[in-house]
């Protein structure tokens, strides 16, 4: 049996009200240690107010080669952007 610690992906909330953002990864034997290590690795200069850790093999990700089929369909749907509609200045912000 391999004794290598699993890889954890680390997410930090930079300040109150913001979403957690991915900052990097580290190895740890369990979630508790991963949080402790993340504190030491990623928040030494007050970078955060909260830490999330997720074991890397629990993250499902889209494949970069799927970029075309996934995102191209929205390119032709320009009307999803508010600027598509011509609203006269005198109507005010909308």
């Amino acid at each position, binding site marked *: 049996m391999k004794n290598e610690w699993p890889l954890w992906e680390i997410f930090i*909330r930079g300040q109150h009200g913001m979403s957690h953002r991915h900052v990097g990864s580290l190895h740890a034997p369990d979630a508790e240690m991963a949080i402790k290590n993340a504190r030491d690795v990623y928040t030494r200069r007050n970078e955060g107010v909260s830490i999330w850790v997720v074991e890397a093999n629990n993250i499902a990700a889209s494949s970069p080669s799927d970029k075309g089929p996934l995102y191209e369909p929205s390119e032709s749907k320009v*009307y999803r952007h508010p600027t598509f509609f011509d609203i006269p200045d005198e109507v005010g912000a*909308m």
Partner: protein
Amino acid sequence: MYAQMVQSEASTDDPEKLAAFQARIDAGEKIEPKDWMPAGYRKTLIRQIGQHAHSEIVGQLPEGNWITRAPTLERKAILLAKVQDEAGHGLYLYCAAETLGVSRDELTEMLLDGRMKYSSIFNYPTLNWADMGAVGWLVDGAAIMNQVPLQRTSFGPYSRAMIRVCKEESFHARQGFDAIRKMATGTPAQKKMAQDAVNRLWFPALMMFGPSDADSVHSTQSMAWKIKMNTNDELRQKFVDQTVPQIEFLGLDLPDEGITWNEERGHYDYSDPDWSEFFDVIKGNGPCNTDRLAARNKAWKDGEWVRDGLLAHARKKAARKHAAE
């Protein structure tokens, strides 16, 4: 506003903890799901975010009604995109509510059996294409009035959901205004339809903000907790002030003879909606309450085999993978 008359829960928690909690809110800190919070704060938020989410979902029905009958392919694609956005908004909000310890299915069931409400506006029918313009412009316009300040609400997940929603909402209002403007500047028959839509939807839109402050019994605690950012009357006034010049720009008649500019107040005066109608609609007696709930119940029931089937497939796949390891 997509949440109306949300009942505020009093708190029976330890006064010291309550004071510390209030101090955090007063300091502008965000409350996150794992933070301690008063039971009343949690309950009120579940009610409010849940009602908000239900409104997004039920709100798809009056507009979905016109997708297949849009006048051009372009309008059809736009309306489809808009209704699709509403499904997404419902999703963001349900997820925010779930961080408070209620499950998606619980929320859905409470909508389906009438224990939870959705905005009164969606109990009105959309009779013709002009209503699609009026709904986007007036109904989404009124919702935006409420949602913009809610971006600063004290509960982190709700605030972040609102930021995303507001980013997308501008498209909704603008496509509605664009559609109604086309009709208001079109043939006399089209202009008449635009006028009729504004006349019918004006007061129901004003009702979206909830009863007058004098009759709004739930506001004080929610405002202290920054779950509610402005009073109903403040937001209603803002909406009227913004919308009246737009109606005039379109060359349409004002839908309420009581609308006059009040120099002294620096605001438009306007007539109150018929509040007895509002309370009646909330109670379930609006023109479309039965239809809307029936449509949601049917969708939930008809979708059961899909939900169960996909879950069974996922479980089978997991078991196979487990067996292979």
